[in-house]
């Protein structure tokens, strides 16, 4: 198996659904990072079969709520002096902005391009969100990230 060094002070984003890693990597802007980052894909996992992992060798500010929308199974470990000091379990955020776009061709967001695409959580159990403008329903984590 591929080995990636442990990080000293940073963040490990674990249990990413296999294949979603690059999407999250891009969302966090890690392709432009000037510190050490690693995207590891298709790591064997007891619970998920395969998973992706992102290791960031820096304590950066992450919009955890957005990650909860993309995939609530993700876990985040904060590492200080090579030890996990904090584990963050994600939940569905009440509101997400500019993460997905509304696909309803009759929605005002389809013509007024300057408006942020805002979705509100309407059903936690079904992970359902609705467009703030047209009420079109979407499932969290499904669809293209903007």
């Amino acid at each position, binding site marked *: 198996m591929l080995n990636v060094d442990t990080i000293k002070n940073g963040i490990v984003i674990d249990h990413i659904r296999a294949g979603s890693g690059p999407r999250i990597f891009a969302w966090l802007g890690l392709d432009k990072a000037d510190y050490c980052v690693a995207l590891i894909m298709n790591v064997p996992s007891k619970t998920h079969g395969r998973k992706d992992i992102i290791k960031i060798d820096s304590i950066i500010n992450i919009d955890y709520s957005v990650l909860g929308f993309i995939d609530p199974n993700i876990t985040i470990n904060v590492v200080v002096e090579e030890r996990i000091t904090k584990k963050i379990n994600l939940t569905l955020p009440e509101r997400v902005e500019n993460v997905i776009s509304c696909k*309803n061709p*009759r*929605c*005002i*967001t*389809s*013509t*007024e391009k*300057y*408006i942020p695409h805002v979705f509100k959580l*309407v*059903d936690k159990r079904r992970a*359902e969100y*609705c*467009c*703030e*403008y*047209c*009420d*079109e*329903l979407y499932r969290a984590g499904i669809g293209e990230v903007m």
Partner: protein
Amino acid sequence: MLKGRHLIEPADLSIKEIDEICSLAEQILVDPAAFADVCRGKILATLFFEPSTRTRLSFEAAMLRLGGSFLGFADAAASSAVKGESLSDTIRTVASYTDVIAMRNPKEGAALLASKYSDIPIINAGDGGHQHPTQTLTDLLTIRSIKGGFNDLTIGLCGDLKFGRTVHSLAKAMSRYQRVKFILISPSELQIPEYITSQVFKRSGIEYSTEERLEDVIGDLDVLYMTRVQKERFFNEQDYIRLKDSYILDNEKMKLAKKSLIVLHPLPRVNEIAPEVDDDPRAAYFKQVKFGMYARMALIAKLTGAI
């Protein structure tokens, strides 16, 4: 306090505020002369990016009867939208000239967007197939005036329940009252959107059923709300032609209905209600047109702070 508020969807008004508007509308209906000057000096903008006769004229007549005046346009071609101006810029401009804006726009959510850029009240006069709260106020005023209230009613919604915005608004508004039951009568292609059943009916504990044939359920109804199968909501003409005559109310079907039934329709109708039904005392759709103007008079008076 309704002064300065926007009306984007029926839920923006509490049950108490709806009662307040309906009560004022009933007072105006009884003594219009007492309200003939309350909006003197105020201007209503009617911004209609989509054609409408009834709603626009109803708003304009309402403002004139309150002693105010109006300006605006009757279709998008007469606005700066054709030059590519954004809706937010149009709204900020018009809000500088007027006291209240009534807007119809074919895009869903347009009124909500307008409200974010306006410091004067925005009244949603229809945003695509989404919401049409002043038609709902009209429908509520009609039901209240004829049936005496809103509780314990079985309401049949018939026709185009998918794109008919008046249906969506009425369903949301009536779901807030006690022991209301809905019977949804439509072809499978034009069923009510899932968000209404999942977010409105189920959440409010409202009983509802889905039916395909009007004659099977008309006898159970207290209110029958007919809708037009609108040509402009279809992506192709073949579907329109196939479905437009699916649900036509005639005297034969009316024989199966209760004596106390009232038939409502947002109008204009095409052929979904046969003209022979017009003489039936249960046909309330032309009374509804008049109630619409009084409902809008009450609303304008409240939002502008005239009363």
